[in-house]
């Protein structure tokens, strides 16, 4: 068996297939330059190539494909938001996730397990009822559930009847799901590359060439390129990159820390979050418990981790699942979240012509990957802002028309 495997491996008849085209020298000009080869950037390239016939695209990343927040998020997919604008947008994203494996011919390992948000106060119950009504009105499966139902959904949960944070009920979101985050970006990038998009890793954008208020090209560590338009999709570095284009954003960058335990037998089906305890958890298909929480208490551009946040996370998760006291932490990490004042993204046009923004993704970026790729591609290809993302334009802050989703975070930050 090992010998035949070796023979197969070295045989010329079965050459290794490369998923991505090998890196070439940068061309002098591209129709579209996308800064940031994460899930969003790759998705924008894919939808441009497949649905709009635009393939002269450079997908640039200062590091490697999907190595930023696409690798660091906790892979939660849900649409139980609070505003009609938010719910419509994320609902469409969840729908696209359902057909994504077929669309990409790449298994993104979507698992629709449902998401349960716990309420420990009467105020939380009231806001959950509001969210449930809003969600149902827009065709999203959310309902307010009582203690008994919570117990049935998650038998291992500590209800803390006499504790400080007793579980009073929850918001049950049957559409909640998870997927393999790496597969999402690899799938998008592979299919984009197969259609002629050029992926350039280790290519850092160091300046943006703007003439008379129009973006004309970018300067990178591998040479200058001119282009028809620029899309920035750089998550935590949004303010830094936008500044090169002379754009100020309503963003603060905070680290968010998460961790993963050793694997256990499958025992936790839904994704569970507690806004009161600032913690959310899910068991991956490998059996590990992924635990995430709120952002750090102050802004920072470093992905260092702190013992304080790990202690806070651990204390919170033990309130919910005391048996995890024995669990060993296998990995822990941080990602930079670009938080906006209203917890909604900033998408669409910018003050610079031919320069498009895909920023302000805070802690809600992964779940929006497909719809973001689709709508941003539409914007780049047609020049008109799709209705779905119109409410998220940068100009909303000047009109004092925020899209307040602060109440709909999984672990209020």
């Amino acid at each position, binding site marked *: 068996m090992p010998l035949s495997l070796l023979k197969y491996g070295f045989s010329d008849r079965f050459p290794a297939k490369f998923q991505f085209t090998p890196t070439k020298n940068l061309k002098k000009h591209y129709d579209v330059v996308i800064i940031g080869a994460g899930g969003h950037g790759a998705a924008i390239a894919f939808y441009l190539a497949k649905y709009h016939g635009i393939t002269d695209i450079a997908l640039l990343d200062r590091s490697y494909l999907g190595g930023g927040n696409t690798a660091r998020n906790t892979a939660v997919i849900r649409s139980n938001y609070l505003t009609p604008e938010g719910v419509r947008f994320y609902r469409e994203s969840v729908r696209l996730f359902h057909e994504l494996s077929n669309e990409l011919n790449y298994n993104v390992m979507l698992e629709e397990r449902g998401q349960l948000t716990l309420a420990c106060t009467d105020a939380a119950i009231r806001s959950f009822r509001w969210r449930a009504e809003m969600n149902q009105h827009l065709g999203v499966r959310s309902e307010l559930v009582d203690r008994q139902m919570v117990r049935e959904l998650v038998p291992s949960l500590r209800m803390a009847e006499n504790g400080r944070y007793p579980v009073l009920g929850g918001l049950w979101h049957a559409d909640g799901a998870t997927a393999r985050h790496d597969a999402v970006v690899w799938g998008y990038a592979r299919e984009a590359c197969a259609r002629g998009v050029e992926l350039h890793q280790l290519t850092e954008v160091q300046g943006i060439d703007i003439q008379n208020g129009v973006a004309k090209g970018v300067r990178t560590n591998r040479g200058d390129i001119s282009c028809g338009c620029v899309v920035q999709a750089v998550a935590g*570095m949004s*303010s*830094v990159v936008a*500044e090169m284009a002379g754009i*100020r*954003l*309503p*963003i*603060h*960058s905070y680290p968010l820390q998460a961790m993963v335990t050793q694997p256990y037998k499958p025992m936790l089906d839904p994704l569970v979050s507690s806004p009161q305890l600032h913690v959310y958890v899910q068991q991956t298909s490998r059996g590990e418990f992924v635990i995430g929480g709120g952002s750090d*208490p*102050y*802004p*920072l*551009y*470093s992905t*260092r981790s*702190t*013992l*304080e946040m790990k202690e806070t996370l651990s204390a919170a998760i033990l309130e919910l699942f005391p048996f995890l006291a024995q669990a060993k932490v296998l990995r822990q990490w941080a990602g930079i979240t670009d938080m906006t*004042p209203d917890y909604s993204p900033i998408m669409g046009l910018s003050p610079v012509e031919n320069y498009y923004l895909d920023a302000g993704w805070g802690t809600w970026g992964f779940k929006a990957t497909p719809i973001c790729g689709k709508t941003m591609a539409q914007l780049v290809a047609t020049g008109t802002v799709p209705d779905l993302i119109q409410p998220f334009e940068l100009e909303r*802050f*000047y009109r*004092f028309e925020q899209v307040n989703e602060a109440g709909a975070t999984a672990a209020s930050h």
Partner: protein
Amino acid sequence: MKILTCPVNGPRNISEFIYGGEYHPQPDPKQSSDREWAEYVFFHANTRGRVIEWWCHSATSVWFLAERDTGTDQVVRTFVAGNWPKDLDQSEELT
């Protein structure tokens, strides 16, 4: 555990402090347009590098300013608002 030096109370554990946002001067509310006011309220430099920001020692309610590097999380110095270091321009935020 990270230590932050309060200009009044001396070095204390960072968990005793509350972050108060970037230092940026407020425009005159009577003179500024809605657009300028929105800029002031919502938009930030969010600089990667040295910034001046407000901090509060919550146990004693002392508000002060800190010069901190947001790339490395190193605090360069802290001072109370009435005692600006001479080498710092207090009319505009550092960018």
